[in-house]
């Protein structure tokens, strides 16, 4: 019995270790790869090389990765600020000023979560053309700023808020907007952090909509740049690996710095 149990737990750890290895290995491979040449990566070299300088030089010199990273960051920051403002205000409105009509509006909001982006894509493209926003970063920020999932996430997180505090402020004569910005917002910092991380991730990794909207090379994001590097006819794996490493790094840093909020941002909204 005891031997059987030991064998079982050994198998369990083996299973976990092998799975963890396969999960982490590609990250290790990216880091190694960014220091090697395309040929070395292909032949399976698994040790650090001395080509990082060359890869970086090619990536930033020939492909303008610097500009692409700047574009990605600009779009992501604007999207985070605008979407946090819009979606958290809506969630606050739904949760703190309950009414039948607003509950119905909320149900309608939730229903739209089922709509695939492909069904919106063509009219959205035409709207962007009509408003002369084609090939502009604003087109991406505006469309990304309304995330029904974020409204849902914020509202779920607001459910347990002690409304007495808001009542007290109201009695003291504070305006509703002031209550929201100076009392409510500062007390929900970790929820906002979680929302910001989710929004940043989504924006930073976006592909299809930027692919449609951004048409000139100087406007494209790092995601688009990496994708185009890899689909060229003579892809340089060393340069691509370096690009992937650079584009993934910010997200990994954010992940380890805010692990708790990060996970909360993905899960928090669906607690039963």
């Amino acid at each position, binding site marked *: 019995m005891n031997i059987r149990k030991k064998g079982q737990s050994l198998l369990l750890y083996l299973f976990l270790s092998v799975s963890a290895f396969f999960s982490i290995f*590609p990250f290790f491979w990216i880091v190694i790869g960014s220091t090697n040449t395309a040929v070395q990566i292909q032949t*399976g070299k698994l040790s650090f090389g001395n080509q990082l300088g060359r890869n970086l030089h090619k990536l930033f010199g020939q492909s303008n990765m610097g500009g692409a990273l700047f574009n990605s960051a600009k779009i992501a920051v604007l999207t985070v600020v605008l979407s946090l403002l*819009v979606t958290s205000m809506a969630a606050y409105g739904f949760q703190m*000023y309950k009414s039948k009509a607003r509950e119905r509006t909320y149900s309608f909001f939730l229903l*739209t979560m089922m709509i695939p982006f492909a069904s919106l894509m063509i009219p959205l493209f*035409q709207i962007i053309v009509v408003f002369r926003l084609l090939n502009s970063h604003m087109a991406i920020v505006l469309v990304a700023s309304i995330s029904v999932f974020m409204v849902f996430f914020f509202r779920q997180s607001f459910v347990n808020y002690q409304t007495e505090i808001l009542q007290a402020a109201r009695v003291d004569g504070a305006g509703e907007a002031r209550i929201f910005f100076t009392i409510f917002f500062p007390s929900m910092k970790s929820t906002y952090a979680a929302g910001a991380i989710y929004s940043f991730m989504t924006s930073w990794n976006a592909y299809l909509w930027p692919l449609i909207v951004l048409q000139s090379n100087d406007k494209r994001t790092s995601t688009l740049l990496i994708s185009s590097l*890899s689909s060229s006819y003579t892809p340089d794996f060393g340069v691509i690996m370096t690009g992937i490493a650079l584009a*993934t790094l910010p997200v990994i840093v954010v992940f380890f710095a805010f692990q708790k909020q990060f996970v909360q941002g993905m899960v928090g909204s669906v607690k039963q």
Partner: protein
Amino acid sequence: MANEKRLDRIGWYFITPACVLLLFFIVYPIFFSLYLSFTSTKGIVSQFVGVKNYLRMFGDPMFFLALENTFRLLLIQVPIMLLLSITFAAILNNKSIRFRGFFRTALFLPSVTSLIAYSILFKMLFSYDGLVNNTLIKLSIIDAPLQWMSEPRLATFVLVIAMIWRWTGYNMIFYLSAMQNISEDLYEAASIDGSSKVHSFFTITIPLLKPIILFTTVMSTIGTLQLFDEPMNLSQGGTTASMIGPDNCFLTLSVYIYNICFKYTPNFGYAATVSYAILIIIALLTFIQFRLSGDREEAMRKTLERKGGVR
């Protein structure tokens, strides 16, 4: 009373920006898409053609190929991934497992990569003279390199493996956080009654996880039906290639819509028709999944209650 009215008005003020954006970027587009699906556009000229696009869709072999490819991925990838996720979650929820934090982080880490990054990564790993072929040859598992990316079956296999790699940890986190909300007392009571761990998993954990299983199934289904980034970046040549994957095996519905709009002579009307097909499929599948889980949940609750009564 006046105050209440004032507060009601202010409630609307808070929601207005979101409503305006929703109207502009979701509500208007979805209705305009419906209108478009009854028109045919050539350049700037568009004309009403009735259900012609829908008739064309039902006779379009490319549409059915895309539908078949998408469903093949859905039926293979989603069940395997969700089973793996729930297995990992069940193992890592056990407090006697050592290095839980490490394993949890390691398994979750793939979820931070962008869809583009991991697709390209897997394309490189599985290229003809790539690391996977080299390693398999070194280990004498295969004699000659496999044509991973030029044989439809193998290419589909790579896509499925890649998606499992990226999404298993993500779904595991949902299950883990739901499992942590289940009271320990339930398991203790069950073990006093002589129930084994595996038995408790099926009689306590799974029934209580029903809502979250439903949530992850619906989300994964919607995600897979919209699959675009991965097939586009896993195939050679990306957006400009004549075929998406060997024998078009990566041609998903979303890729097909993109091609109709931006690669072939643009026909927004027909693209809108295909996009409505996705919408209808998603609505149907979501409805079915809710129905199935609803009935089973009811049955489960009844069994649990009966068991509780006996105890």
